[in-house]
């Protein structure tokens, strides 16, 4: 069989019978149902976000209810609303301050592509600043769409390799407030 140096290869060789694989699954299960949100709300989409969190649509059903306003404790960065170029450094900073594992949710047309603000002042899609995991367009998106996006994100989280997943810092700007190890 030779030496198994790569965990991917190890997984293939040892299949489902070994605890590493199972640990990955358990971690995925936990992460999938436990998103602590960081609501980065800047504009009109925020109203719809309230609706998603409220009684009618209730995002808590999927385990993604608890807002943590400290980025250290948050898992899912909800970017809700227009991001202007003035706002961009703050968004990057918050993203950098979040601890691993972290995901980014682009909520609304403005965050996906700049939306109707096709001008010099607005960031044309937050994926020019930070890596985005799920895009939900709409101006604003309907709550059903947001829930659908969240479910899709959960499916994606299950598929990811969990135990050594590092997203790191944003590709733009300086990361002066975080020690990268």
């Amino acid at each position, binding site marked *: 069989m030779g030496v198994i140096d790569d965990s991917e290869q190890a997984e293939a060789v040892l299949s489902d019978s070994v605890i590493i694989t199972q640990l990955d699954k358990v971690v995925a*299960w936990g992460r999938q149902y*436990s998103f602590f949100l960081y609501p980065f709300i800047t504009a009109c989409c925020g109203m719809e976000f309230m609706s998603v969190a409220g*009684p009618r649509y209730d995002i*808590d059903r999927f*385990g993604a209810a608890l807002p943590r306003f*400290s980025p*250290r*404790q948050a898992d899912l960065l909800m970017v809700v609303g227009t991001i202007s170029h003035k706002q961009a450094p703050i968004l990057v900073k918050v993203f950098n301050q979040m601890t691993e594992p972290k995901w980014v949710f682009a909520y609304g047309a403005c965050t996906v592509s700049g939306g109707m603000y096709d001008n010099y002042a607005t960031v044309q899609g937050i994926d020019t600043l930070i890596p985005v995991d799920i895009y939900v367009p709409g101006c604003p998106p309907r709550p059903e769409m947001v829930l659908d996006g969240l479910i899709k994100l959960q499916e994606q989280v299950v598929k990811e390799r969990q135990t050594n997943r590092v997203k790191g810092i944003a590709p733009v700007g300086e990361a002066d407030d975080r*020690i990268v190890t």
Partner: protein
Amino acid sequence: MITLPDLVETVVKIAFILGLTIGFYAPIIGWIERKQSAVMQDRIGGNRAAILGFTVIGLFHSLADAIKLIFKEDFVPRGAETALHRLAPVISVVPALIAFAVIPFGGTYNLWGHETRLVIADLDVGVLYVFAIASLATYGVVIAGWASNNNWSLLGALRAAAQMFSYEVAMGLTIIGLVMFYQSLSLVEIVDKQENFYHWGIIWHFPAFILFLTCAIAENKRIPFDTPEAESELVAGYFTEYSGMKFIMFWTAEFLEIVTISALCVTLFFGGHQIPFVTVSGLIDFLGFLGPNGANAAAMLIGVAVFIIKLTLLIMLQMSIRWTLPRFRYDQVMKLGWKMILPASLIWIFLVGAGILTGVMPAV
């Protein structure tokens, strides 16, 4: 001289308390908090996390949270005091746990010729011990705030320190009337004296109960007294810079303190393990058909169950308070503590003294 049965008994009791608090109540309180908030806001609350298709009314969401937080990055900010930053969550959790040592969760039972008292340590000064330990929790908070090298953490820690010290004074004074009434500082003795239902603390000391619960919630920094972690002002207060497991330790400390407060309330005001109008010896006699050992064991189980039921009801009461009231402003918190609760508890001490002197209150 410690004999082997004594040692075994103590170890079993400690294991039981740890299992009850960390193993049972910590996740259950997390779940109650979530579900109760959902119900009170007319929502459904977490119900998707399932194991083998079972969701157990969302209970597995607590498990998912725990798994995720264990595998979250363990973060120490730049410029922080690394050692103290690591130590602070521990200092917060431990006092909440060891305060349980003096709280009786059952009576005295004779099992197979071995006298078993359901309290880990029967101290003469149990009440003082609880207060001494409770004030240790302040260190955890202050160290956490200081070691994080963050403005919000430090401000939160300072607020927490001021608030906890202020309310400790008032909390101590609310209990004085009770101590005068029962003429003992030992929690075991206080519970034994509540065997008679008409001597329960809640009947003679209802104002003290209200004051004590208010102070205890303030001491625990829960809403409506959560100014040390006020999100709109201080991001997350003294634990802003904590992530993953260390963050959940602060939460656990908070949950355990809820349990400790409730246990103390049950012990002081609601007769601990006592059932109204039923004495422990009467219960053992009634269960006599099970044989002497069986009767004692059954009475023990009933006593523990009664204690746990009372405990859970008080925890639910605290949760309802938490989801009903909005947060006080910081100066209002201080004003309430020093200008209202403190004088009120002093007046109550005077009234109890007068009551005992004139014979209005029964001698117990």
